[in-house]
């Protein structure tokens, strides 16, 4: 599922994949009213993404959509070596 990535000097990064959530809709009459904040909503699809990960001694790439068919608990937190 997740292919291993080689650790080089560059910091591996990922990002959202698939269609953009905040694609600017063409509004011919009014010019940009507000910045559309892409907010996730319950009952809607989770935005797909790909991100490098550390998993049991290996560096891998994780793609959220690879987990379709399973329940996922996705937990963001402020930072490594912090206290809570």
């Amino acid at each position, binding site marked *: 599922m997740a292919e291993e990535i080689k650790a080089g000097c560059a910091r*591996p990064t990922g990002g*959202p994949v698939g269609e953009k959530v905040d694609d600017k809709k063409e509004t011919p009459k009014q010019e940009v009213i507000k910045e559309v904040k892409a907010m996730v909503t319950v009952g809607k699809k989770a935005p797909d993404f790909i991100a*490098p990960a550390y998993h049991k001694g290996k560096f891998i790439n994780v793609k959220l959509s690879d987990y379709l068919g399973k*329940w996922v608990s996705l937990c*963001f937190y402020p930072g490594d070596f912090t206290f809570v």
Partner: protein
Amino acid sequence: MVAEKYPEFQKLGVEVLSMSVDSVFVHKMWDAHELSKMVKGGIPFPMLSDGGGKVGSVFGVYLEDAGVEARGRFLIDPDGIIQGFEVLTPPVGRNVSETLRQLQAFQHVRNSKGTEATPSGWRPGKPTLKPGPDLVGKVWEVWKTSMAFDK
């Protein structure tokens, strides 16, 4: 700590992914030097790196001023649908038991194909509600507020 309760997540068939703006190299060091001393065997699930908060921004949890992610926890079902989320500012930690309770409730509802709903404070073994015309105005007969609390 999710890692401590990981076997319970596994029992429910739930995959755990953690994510912060730290690099995978720092994740490795944190696991090796600290977390593995708290949790036997270290962190069992993938620790994802979100440099620049690109993914966190899409999920609405990236705090631009601080350059870190808030404590956002998203429960995503097998169809990729977000069933629930909770977002806390950094100083307050989550309650893993509540996450497990919600997962059990969402799984129960899904297994019932939407015919059952779980009332406040539901846990496996407690009665569910079967929404329908007959239940309207009659919830008080089948469900008491005391059922919402664990003694």
